[in-house]
Each structure stands twice: as structure tokens, then as C-alpha cells.
């Protein structure tokens, strides 16, 4: 049994798609051989096909408690680590004539391939950014799928980890995860995924993706900490929702859904009757609870627009940066880190 559960809330109204989270994670965790193509954290434009491509159509998870078959993504569907002619460009002595080019077969997909395409028609086009990481689910489909018990959910904080000494690279976890956030390391022949920066967590430091976010998008903390933002956003205000809750894994990463600008009507006037991002689309991502969440966000925003105060809006703005991390606010630069 998990005694406590760490969680993350991401406010999609604030994400600018800068990928700082993605790179912060990459530099920390996926620089070794066999990890070149891995992005434990991705940020994709919605609506879009995502990473891996069309992952939402790959199955997995549970229905009425029963495991659902999933499809194993291919490397190219994630987007492989492309090789470039760096030697030519930097050392080939050809000056400006040498252009940086991908070597080998031209790729047809990558981890951020359909960036900023979004949906809708001019002048009512819309898009928003969806950062994704392992959801450290309460009922992890990956853990249930592994015949070797190579995936563990830590009782003390609910972080889900692959035991690399047990893993034999059978990839049932990759099939079963409905979020497709597990990668296969071909060099080491095992599965790897987001570790919620547990070595940082154990030192009181928030995960790198959260701490490095310039937009103050991410909140971190224990789900049951009533004095911290996670509990207030998820349980009290109910404005933070799991992605695709229908998969039955009970994610512990939550999203504050995006409020888009209003539409323009045929005359070019603002049409306040309908949102630019269709509610149906957001419901397809976050379930029916998204409508109440959006209504709450609108109400509280209007309160502030009317010169009132809103505890929710103050919380989401994140005036005090360190308060976003549920006590995991220690400065990593003050710690002497040692290699494992």
C-alpha cells in the first residue's frame, strides 16, 4: 500500500511550449548510451498526434478493472535520435557551404513534429501545449503488466520505478501503459521512464521539470497535504484533472484545463457564446469533470477582473515561486551531489 502519494499539477493556461522542462529532464536523466531518443518529459501541441504518434489510439490501461491490450510503439513513432553531419559542418572546412542535415533515411515523425499546428479554422484557430511525463499512477498498468515484478511503486511516496536489475526488456509495460511514457533502451535492453526525480525529491528538491519551468506551470507535493497547492487544486477547487481518466489507472499528474480566447463571429465581432477550444475536445482529454473545472476557472477569473480577490487565481498565478513545491523547495545548488 502506498502511504503517501506525490503528485504534480500543471496549469495549461500558463504553458508556453518552450520545452525548458523537456531539456532540463534530458540533461539530467537521458544522456547515456541507448537513451538518445528518450524524452521522459515531452510537450506537444494539442490538438495533435502527440508522442509517440497517435498514442491515444494505442490502447492499454483498464476497463472495468480489466487490463486492455495495447500496442507497442515503434521507435520511429516516438521519433528516433536523428544523426547529423556535425563533423562536416563544424570541422569539414567548408565554411558556410556546409548545411546541417539529418543523415540516413529522412524521418517522418519526431517528438514535437506537429508543433503549433493545432485545430480550428481561421480566425478561430486554436492550440495549447500539453506537457506529459509518467503519471505515477495509483493503479499503474505497467506494474500490473510486468510478469517479472520489475516495476515497483514506492510505498513512501508512490513514485513508480523500473527496477533495472529485474527488467529483461520484455516491454509488456510499454504495451500496457495507456499514456505511452515508457521507452526501450536498445543498448541495455530494458525499459526506462520518468523517475519523478526521486534523488532530488529525497533531498527536498522539486523535480527538474517543475523547478526549471519559467512559466511557473508546475506544482509539486503530496496529495494529502492540505496546506499545499496540490490538495487545494485537485480536491478543494477541483480544477486540476487527470488526463484520459477513462483508462482507470488514476494518474497522479493533473492538469488545469486551458481557457481559450472567445471566438470571432462571421462579422469579426467577439462571440462570447462559445469557447474557441470546443468543450467536447477538452472533455475527450480530461473527462466530463472538465466542464465544472472550466466554469470554476471562469467564475474566479471574472471575480478578479471585477477587482475582487480569488484565492484560486492567486494560487494559480504562483506569486511565491517556492510555495508551488509543497515543501520540496530546497535549492539544488546547495547540495553536494554524488554519483550513485
Amino acid at each position, binding site marked *: 500500500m502506498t502511504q503517501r502519494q506525490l503528485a504534480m499539477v500543471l496549469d495549461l493556461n500558463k504553458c508556453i511550449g518552450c520545452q525548458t522542462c523537456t531539456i532540463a529532464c534530458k540533461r539530467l536523466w537521458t544522456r547515456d548510451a541507448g537513451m538518445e531518443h528518450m524524452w521522459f518529459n515531452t510537450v506537444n501541441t494539442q490538438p495533435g498526434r502527440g508522442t509517440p504518434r497517435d498514442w491515444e489510439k494505442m490502447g492499454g490501461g483498464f476497463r472495468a478493472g480489466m*487490463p486492455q491490450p495495447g500496442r507497442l510503439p515503434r521507435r520511429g513513432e516516438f521519433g528516433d535520435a536523428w544523426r547529423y553531419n556535425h563533423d562536416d559542418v563544424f570541422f569539414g572546412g567548408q565554411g558556410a557551404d556546409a548545411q546541417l542535415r539529418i543523415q540516413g533515411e529522412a524521418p517522418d515523425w519526431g517528438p514535437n513534429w506537429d508543433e503549433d499546428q493545432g485545430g480550428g479554422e481561421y480566425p478561430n484557430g486554436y492550440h495549447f501545449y500539453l506537457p506529459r511525463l509518467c503519471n505515477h499512477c495509483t493503479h499503474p498498468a505497467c506494474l500490473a503488466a510486468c510478469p517479472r515484478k520489475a516495476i515497483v511503486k514506492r510505498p513512501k511516496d508512490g513514485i513508480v520505478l523500473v527496477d533495472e536489475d529485474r527488467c529483461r526488456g520484455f*516491454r509488456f509495460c510499454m504495451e500496457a501503459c495507456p499514456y505511452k511514457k515508457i521507452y526501450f533502451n536498445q543498448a541495455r535492453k530494458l525499459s526506462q521512464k520518468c523517475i519523478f526525480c526521486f534523488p532530488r525529491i529525497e533531498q527536498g528538491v522539486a523535480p527538474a521539470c517543475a523547478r526549471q519551468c519559467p512559466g511557473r506551470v508546475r506544482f509539486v507535493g503530496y496529495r494529502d497535504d492540505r496546506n499545499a497547492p496540490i490538495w487545494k487544486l485537485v480536491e478543494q477547487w477541483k480544477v486540476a484533472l487527470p488526463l484520459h481518466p477513462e483508462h482507470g489507472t488514476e494518474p497522479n499528474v493533473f492538469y488545469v484545463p486551458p481557457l481559450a480566447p472567445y471566438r470571432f463571429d462571421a462579422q469579426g465581432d467577439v462571440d462570447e457564446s462559445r469557447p474557441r477550444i470546443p468543450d467536447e475536445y477538452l472533455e475527450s482529454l480530461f473527462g466530463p469533470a472538465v466542464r465544472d473545472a472550466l466554469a470554476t476557472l471562469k467564475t474566479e477569473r471574472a471575480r478578479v477582473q471585477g477587482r475582487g480577490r480569488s484565492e484560486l487565481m492567486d494560487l494559480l498565478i504562483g506569486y511565491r515561486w517556492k510555495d508551488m513545491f509543497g515543501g520540496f523547495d530546497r535549492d539544488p545548488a546547495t547540495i553536494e551531489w554524488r554519483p550513485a
Partner: protein
Amino acid sequence: MQAHVIPGIDEAELLDPLHALWRRADVSRIALSGTPLGLQPSPYVQAAWRDRRVGATGHVRVAALHDGVRLAFRLEWEDASRDAVLTDDDRFADAAAVMLPAAAEAPIYTMGAPGLPVTAWYWRADEQQAREIVAEGVGSSRTVARDTVRAAGVWQAGRWSVVIARSLTAGGPGAVQGLGTGAAIGFGVAIWEGGSGERAGLKSWSGPAWQSLTLEPTPTARS
């Protein structure tokens, strides 16, 4: 089945599945079947393979030789596809293993049981080293050594020939009781067809009962 003795075998020759040495061994044709889905420890695997066929390999030709020091099995089976390189994340490698009891009453059906270990000598086409594995029940297998089991595989004209060998007297958790005394011991064979997605408990096996193997006594033991 009997493992003939050939004293003083050169290990390189023994590990060559195509070496003439192997013509001196008795060959048994063992029918294989898919492992029962109910034995899969993962509810996900049971659900995902409900409508898929487990057990792509119908039979295996097994031979065994020993020299009083080491015991070698030669497995040969038909496989139209050579899956020896994981060219993509949805590809799996061909593999084979011989299982032996590491405790007298160890059940083969469940790959041993707590306190009743089995050992498996495991070869996989994409790995440089074979593994000595010990299991005490389904899902509990662990690699205990990577330098005790020697193996080599050759794929030719639609069939794999693989030799898997280990010292008769190897100790450790994978030690096989009674090996080399001339008494019959049990063994089992498993083949994984990587091209069909077979891995872990999804495989063809020689069944829920131990096959019987006797080692021909060495000349010194005979005298």
C-alpha cells in the same frame, strides 16, 4: 534420452552446433506446445494474448553429450525468421533454454516453487553471453551467473541449431542434484519465437512433465 560420453571434448567443437561431433549423439524429437495462458503471472499478458496463439514452434530435436566435466544440449528447430537483432522497439529475439531441477522435487510446471528451485540454461539470439537462471516459481526467474553457461547458435536455411552447455558440477543456487551419477534426471526445453512476439512466459515448451535424461557413465566411472 541418453547423453553419450565423449571424453576430452574440445569445448570449441562441442559449442559448434554444426560440428561432426554431434552426429554421435542420439536425437530425440520432442513435441512442443504453447504454455497455458492461465500460467501467465500477468493479468495483462493473459488479456492481450487471449486471442493470440502462444507456441509458434511445434517441435524441437534434442541431443545431449557430455565428457564427464560438462553437459551440452543441442537444440534444433524450424524458424523461418532469424530474429537476432532488435531492429525496432517492437521486435523480439529468438531464444531457447533447457531447464533442470535444482532441487529433487522441483516442479517444472510452475518453474519451481519457493524452496524448490529450478535452473535454466538460457540462450538468446541477441545476447553475447548465455545466462544461468534460477527460478522458484513463475515470474521469479533471476540470472545467477553469466559465465557458467556457454552457448552458441547458428541459423541456416530456416532452422536454428543451438548448443547450450554447462559444467556438470557447477555449484551455486543453480546446482543440479544428481547430475553425473548415472541416474536419470529431468529436463525441459523451451523455445521463444521472437518474430511472433514470444518472450517471458510466452513460449513453446516441452510440457508440464520433466523429460528424462541419463548420462552415459564415463569410462573411469565404469571401471
